[in-house]
């Protein structure tokens, strides 16, 4: 079998532009081999190299006193949390595979992010996910497809997370037409480690052996790669699976084996095989180490017969790691991997010539300077279209909906409705650390072994981002921080997943640039670094691009278990306060979209100084022990936030939002930022007011919690009331109703 000749068509099919191919020729000083063409193609793809986005990503603030490993250095960033302990966390997408095969696409996405964490030497302790689909309502073919994708993705995440024994403790799910045909699956993982356990993915130590550990290599992920040395006949198509299949059991074994291995002193470097598998891990470790790596394809454990070097190099088989072992300590790998019943093989060594060299027995099939693949790839500055901020919403053009019917309608909207149908499928209690279960603003996890309390939230309102990407991105950061504050936590770090359309289109590239700048501004304002993240571009179909969706995940710490706060009202007689303004910004709101079918107007304004002052004021009174519940206002404004606060313990509330000349729908459903609904014991009212007055933030008492499960809200002269039981039934019943029909 001989390789195909390198022709312009072959080069184009490998996704390399003529200019990029010229660069290949000048790097090598000769024509590439077929395998080398494949290697450049995959390492210089957008997915692996971020060539269209890296110049923008450099704008993120990535340093700070608590940063132990910063963004871009390794597979995940690491942040100090005190007493010699640290956390490694990151979010990543698996959007396109999930559109093809939702169960395996989502499952392997979870598998990939978990590996990114334990390759840092951290024990993974929890997961979160941010999911977006098209509408699941109605009987159109598209709605049926969206339901199938939603069910498949959730089942895939459940399958992988439950089997490997990691709790999924928080997340978000949104439904919007722009995601029809382009679901978004962003998976987050956090792990815990001691400072001295940080593991690096560099090929250190000339002469050290290079080991392959984990599952055997098959032809996974090669259906997209148009070529191998055989012609693509119907038979050979069957040999190329369109999807990778995850094996969470294998990964559990791999995780335990790798952590056991890392606890010995036998490891010089370790890297997981994710996108571009063996190729990526080989050249990246060499590049980071400033060394070279030489491997022999024939030594790689394989599960299919007759695989070519090209296929082995580009395979995306899951659950595999590359380990650089200290010479003389090979027996440690053998002992541990035989204990855990996992394939392992010594496949090469670290060299001193800076090359990624791949042999097929005696033949050298790849010999490329490692740096040119991993660090010195092409970079592009794309064109950003000029942006005109949207006109503010013209309220006079908006009919007033009756809040009595509008509130239940909002609670029924699948983006707002209860996600219990989702998280009940996840084991969210394994590892006995989840102190605040899904269903509150932020998840809270107690890491027993470190005696540390972590909080985490993930947010992005893509309607805001669509209408003004810069404001939307800033709000995503602020909302995460607000959710953390509501749980009693202070933010320590951010990871981002940028989901956008085709970057060659200037309007999409503007969105990416503006989002990065907005996130950077937000992170600087809150004093938190971006520790790493992921970029997913080309999320579009003939109908158009997805709404720009820069998903933000934020991690925080809580100093004392007594500060852990949840969103549900606790007892009748408690007083309800609003920290922040009543607000009036209805532009870009879910009320506008869900009730009036309009996605327009300017998103609400964000003032970081005001926002931070409000979070600090809240944290101050939480630490003093006054706050019995805290819930921030987001989609659906005060109406939804107060209703949701009633649901947890089936309580009611009697609320008066004060004199106003605003319309009731504006008062109840506006999405002005920086607002938090809290409840306190009546006996603490005077002290609370004194404490809050000192901070200078706006606040007002708005009512009290009642025993009868009835919610009544007065705005100006208008009064509405609802049965909390009926609202709760609608809130809980919405998604099951669509999914179980």
């Amino acid at each position, binding site marked *: 079998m001989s390789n195909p000749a390198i022709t312009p068509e072959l080069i184009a099919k490998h996704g390399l532009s003529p200019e990029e191919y010229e660069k290949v020729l000048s790097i090598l000083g000769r024509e590439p081999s077929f395998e080398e063409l494949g290697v450049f193609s995959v390492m210089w793809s957008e997915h692996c190299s971020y060539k269209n986005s890296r110049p923008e990503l450099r704008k993120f603030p990535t340093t700070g006193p608590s940063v132990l490993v910063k963004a871009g250095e390794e597979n995940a960033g690491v942040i100090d949390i005190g007493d010699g302990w640290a956390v490694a966390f990151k979010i990543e997408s698996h959007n396109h595979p999930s559109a093809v095969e939702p169960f395996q696409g989502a499952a392997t996405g979870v598998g990939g992010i978990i590996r990114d964490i334990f390759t840092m030497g951290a024990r993974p302790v929890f997961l979160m996910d941010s999911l977006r689909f098209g509408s699941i309502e109605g009987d159109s073919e598209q709605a049926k497809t969206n339901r199938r994708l939603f069910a498949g993705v959730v089942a895939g995440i*459940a399958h992988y997370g*439950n*089997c*490997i*024994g990691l709790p999924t403790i928080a997340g978000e799910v949104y439904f919007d037409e722009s995601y029809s045909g382009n679901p978004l699956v962003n998976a987050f993982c956090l792990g815990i480690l001691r400072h001295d356990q940080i593991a690096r993915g560099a090929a250190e130590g000339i002469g050290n052996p290079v080991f392959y550990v984990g599952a055997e290599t098959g032809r996974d992920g090669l259906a997209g790669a148009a070529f191998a040395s055989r012609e693509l006949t119907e038979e050979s198509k069957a040999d190329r699976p369109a999807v990778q299949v995850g*094996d*969470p*059991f*294998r990964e*559990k*074994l791999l995780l335990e084996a790798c952590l056991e291995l890392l606890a010995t002193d036998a490891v010089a470097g370790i890297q997981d095989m994710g996108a571009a598998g063996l190729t990526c891990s080989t050249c990246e470790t060499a590049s980071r180490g400033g060394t070279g790596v030489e491997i022999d394809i024939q030594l790689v454990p394989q599960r299919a017969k007759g695989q070519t070097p090209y296929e082995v190099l580009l395979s995306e088989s899951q659950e595999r790691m590359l380990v650089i072992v200290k010479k003389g300590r090979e027996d440690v790998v053998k002992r541990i991997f035989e*204990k*855990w*019943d996992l394939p392992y093989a010594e496949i090469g060594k670290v060299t001193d010539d800076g090359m990624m060299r791949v042999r097929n027995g005696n033949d050298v099939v790849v010999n490329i300077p490692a740096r040119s693949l991993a660090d010195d790839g092409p970079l592009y500055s794309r064109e950003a279209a000029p942006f005109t901020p949207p006109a503010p919403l013209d309220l006079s053009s908006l009919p007033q909906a009756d809040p009595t019917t509008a509130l239940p309608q909002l609670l029924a909207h699948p983006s707002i409705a209860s996600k219990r149908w989702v*998280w*009940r*499928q*996840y*084991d*969210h*209690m*394994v*590892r*006995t*650390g*989840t*102190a605040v*279960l899904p269903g509150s603003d932020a998840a809270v996890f*107690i890491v*027993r072994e470190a005696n540390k309390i972590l909080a985490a939230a993930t947010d992005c309102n893509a309607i805001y981002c669509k209408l003004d990407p810069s404001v939307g991105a800033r709000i995503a950061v602020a909302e995460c921080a607000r959710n953390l504050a509501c749980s009693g936590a202070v933010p320590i770090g951010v990871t981002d997943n940028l989901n956008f359309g085709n970057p060659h289109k200037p309007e999409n590239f503007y969105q990416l640039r503006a989002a990065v700048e907005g996130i950077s501004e937000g992170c600087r304002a809150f004093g938190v670094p971006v520790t790493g993240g992921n970029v997913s571009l080309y999320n579009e179909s003939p109908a158009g691009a997805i709404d720009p969706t820069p998903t933000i995940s934020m991690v925080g710490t809580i100093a004392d*278990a007594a500060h*852990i706060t949840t969103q549900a009202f606790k007892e009748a007689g408690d007083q309800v306060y609003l920290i922040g303004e009543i607000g009036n910004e209805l532009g870009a709101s879910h009320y506008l979209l869900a009730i009036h079918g309009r996605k327009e107007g300017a998103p609400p304004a964000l003032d970081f100084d005001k926002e931070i002052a409000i979070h600090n004021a809240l944290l101050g009174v939480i630490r003093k022990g006054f706050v019995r519940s805290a819930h921030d206002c987001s989609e659906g404004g005060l109406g939804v936030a107060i209703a949701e606060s009633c649901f947890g313990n089936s309580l009611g509330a009697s609320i008066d939002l004060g004199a106003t000349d605003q319309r009731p729908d504006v008062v109840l459903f506006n999405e002005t930022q920086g607002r938090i609904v809290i409840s306190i014991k009546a006996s603490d009212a005077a002290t609370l007011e004194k404490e809050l007055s000192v901070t200078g933030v706006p606040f007002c008492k708005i009512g009290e919690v009642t025993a009868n499960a009835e919610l009544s809200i007065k705005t100006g002269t208008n009064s509405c009331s609802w049965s909390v039981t009926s609202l709760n039934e609608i809130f809980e019943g919405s998604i099951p109703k669509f999914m179980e029909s």
Partner: protein
Amino acid sequence: MAPLMKVAVIQFPGSNCDTDCQAALLSFPGVDAEIVWHKETSLAGYDAVVLPGGFSYGDYLRCGSIARFSPIMGAVRAAADAGVLVLGICNGFQILCEAGLLPGTLLRNNGLLFRCEHLHLRVENSETPFTSVLHKGQVLDIPIAHGEGNYFADPETLAQIEANGQVLVRYCDASGNVTPEANPNGSLGNIAGICSHGRNVFGLMPHPERVCDPLLGGSEGRGIFQSMIEAVQKSKS
């Protein structure tokens, strides 16, 4: 000083709740709990054995079907025969049924979805080493997390276990009523956990180790472990 109870928590490839069980046990003063790898062949010196939850062997083929052949299972069987306390939680319960140490089997939840949530159990028999500090009719808030928890036994076997008082906990509502609505998975008779004829082997689908700390959802799982400690103490005196 000798511990009040020395427990072996068996770790199979794919066990996930092993360290959770160990931590819960260690929260009882005087209790010693060690993780024992499935390839060991002796359980000498242990007062109790716990088979924890998780996905041993990925739950592939049938839940627990491969773990039941692990080398340690010979020692588990010998321990059970000798009257040592053997507790199987979730996947542990599935392994005990596959191994024939408990009757019946666990099938896929009738709703077909994995379910993780807090629910209520009613204690049916408090005259066992696992339930002695509890009382008959007591309602406990203990969470489940499983996709295959639907207890099944053929009619003859089922009649026997009911008649012999081998059903220790049933799914119920908050008031202790055993109703179809309170049954999360379709188990016959709302059965959540059963013991062996000899009373020293107990398997249940819910996770008591997850409710041993008020910060993490409650303490209602402590009764089962406390009962075990007292039973071990009694047998030593």
